């Protein structure tokens, strides 16, 4: 905590943006009085006004409330889609690097097969098989996301396991599991954390992109990518439909990147 004052203004701005987005995700009702799904055929495609600060869309829904209610799903996609692959990928990488030999060879071949498919093609392919929807979106990203973590951890473990402290732990008779989790893991976790933060951003963008293609979140669920996808046909006449979710998506992505950058600087300085 003593390094607090060295944090850059950009970091504080990013933290402020993320706090607001988090508040929107937790208590959307505090920010708007409109329902994000309710249609109002009497006010279609209305420009921003005092009544509807971000205007209304082609079905008369309040854009501001749709943008605010989206925060929950977009943050959840970013965070949850990152979490599961981060854990499984790290464990796979640990096992692969620690045991080497046949275990490593098998895991590496599985990794090769997954790598043969381009990420976007793989995710879209899985969504195509399972059908679109939020749950299947998660499954698709989970099945794809672990690769980077496994590769990252494996290469570090290969170096780390030759250290004396590992030999010492072994001679004390500690189990492999304990050596892996208690001794090696803490020494290889920093790059994983740094990657995980940027992965939150990448997962969020992936979810938004899939929704944009019509393969992600089903209508009328509010999600930034889906709102932009719906609004792009009205781009010329009703700029507000895509502008505001676009700004939110961009601001959130940039803020996560800034926080990740700061974190990576801090962690690399310590090593």
């Amino acid at each position, binding site marked *: 905590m003593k390094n607090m004052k060295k944090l850059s203004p*950009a970091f504080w701005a990013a933290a402020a943006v993320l706090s607001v987005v988090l508040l929107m995700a937790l208590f959307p009702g505090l920010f708007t009085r409109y329902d994000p799904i309710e249609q109002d055929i009497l006010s279609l495609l209305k420009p921003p006004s005092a009544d509807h600060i971000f205007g209304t869309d082609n079905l008369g829904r309040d854009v501001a409330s749709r943008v605010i209610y989206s925060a929950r799903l977009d943050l959840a996609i970013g965070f949850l889609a990152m979490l599961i692959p981060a854990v499984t990928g790290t464990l796979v990488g640990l096992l692969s690097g620690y045991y080497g030999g046949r275990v490593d060879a098998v895991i590496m*071949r599985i990794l*090769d*097969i997954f*790598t*043969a*498919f*381009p*990420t*976007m*093609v793989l995710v*879209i*392919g*899985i969504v*195509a*098989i399972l*059908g679109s929807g939020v749950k299947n979106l998660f499954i698709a990203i989970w099945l794809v996301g672990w690769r980077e973590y496994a590769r990252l951890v494996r290469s570090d473990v290969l170096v780390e396991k030759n250290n004396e402290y590992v030999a010492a732990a072994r001679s004390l008779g500690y189990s492999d599991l304990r050596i892996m989790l208690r001794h090696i893991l803490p020494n290889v976790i920093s790059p994983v954390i740094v990657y995980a933060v940027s992965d939150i*951003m990448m997962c969020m*963008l992936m979810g*938004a*992109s899939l929704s*944009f*293609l*019509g*393969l992600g979140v089903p209508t009328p669920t509010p999600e930034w*990518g889906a709102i*932009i996808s719906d609004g*792009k046909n009205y*781009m*010329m006449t009703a*700029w507000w439909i*895509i502008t505001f979710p*676009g700004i939110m*998506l*961009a601001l959130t*992505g*940039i803020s*996560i*990147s*800034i926080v990740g*950058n700061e974190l990576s600087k801090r962690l690399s300085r310590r090593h």
Partner: protein
Amino acid sequence: MDEFTYILKRILQMIPVLLIVTLAIFFGMRMIPGDPALLLVGNRASDETIAAMRAKLGLDQPLITQYLLFLRSCLTFDFGNSLTLKAPVTELFRQKAVVTVSLTLMTILFAVLISVPLGYYAGLHHDQPAGAVINSISLVFVSVPEFLIGLLLLLVFALKLHWFPVGDWGHTLPEHIRSLILPSLTGALMTSSLVMRNISDNVVKVLSYDYVDFARSKGLSEKRIRNSYILRNVMIPAVTLLAMRMTYMLAGSIVIESVFALPGIGQMMLNAILSRDYSLVQATVYLFAIIVLVMNLLTDISYSLLDPRVKLK
């Protein structure tokens, strides 16, 4: 000779990977809910019509026979006709590939033109405001989705200013190039942000090495040091990164093609998925896998060609 053995080994290693890829594609596609025959003839068709369509598609054969037939088409690259587009799949892929490959090459061209000078400059001036500004811009373009940047460019330069056509691939070469400028720029902004940061970080790193100090103490001019010491060391990882991005673009241009309504492979695959065109999706994913494997091999080879310290083994 070592290199030759290495390349041969890598090519041989592709065979089992590709075999499993075919299995994954085949059984993955069979897991998609819905009967493709029913989808083609419509819900109200008689049982005989459906059965005839199933027979025509080979869906009445045992699964293993169907797989072996698929395997045969993978080996001969003859995937038959697309169900929905009524044309040979390989021919369709070839036609659409022209668009996607041009898009990729133009994106890489733009990315090099943007990222090399800016990244190099940012690295040399990393402790000055200019370097910080360049780095911040690159952070922004990494964190914003491509479809958003694409829509923005489309809105401003095509819809408002009318400098570029909207969703029109055109018929002549100049028309094609014109319709590719905005999509390429969209892809290039993200790619060049990644490459720019890579170059700038590496310039900072190389500047701290002893051999740069040594070159200075020998009295070499600053220009000479930059061109023959720094640039060369920095370009090697940058070229690798660009090659990786090229692979990504070849297969991942779906979003950009969708924003700009370009008739490329990505669009074709998206439509094929949405219309359950089994043969087309299978073939496209398989061909993508081959492209990725070959590109990865080429990336590794180019890496060792550029950097004499890296040995292929």
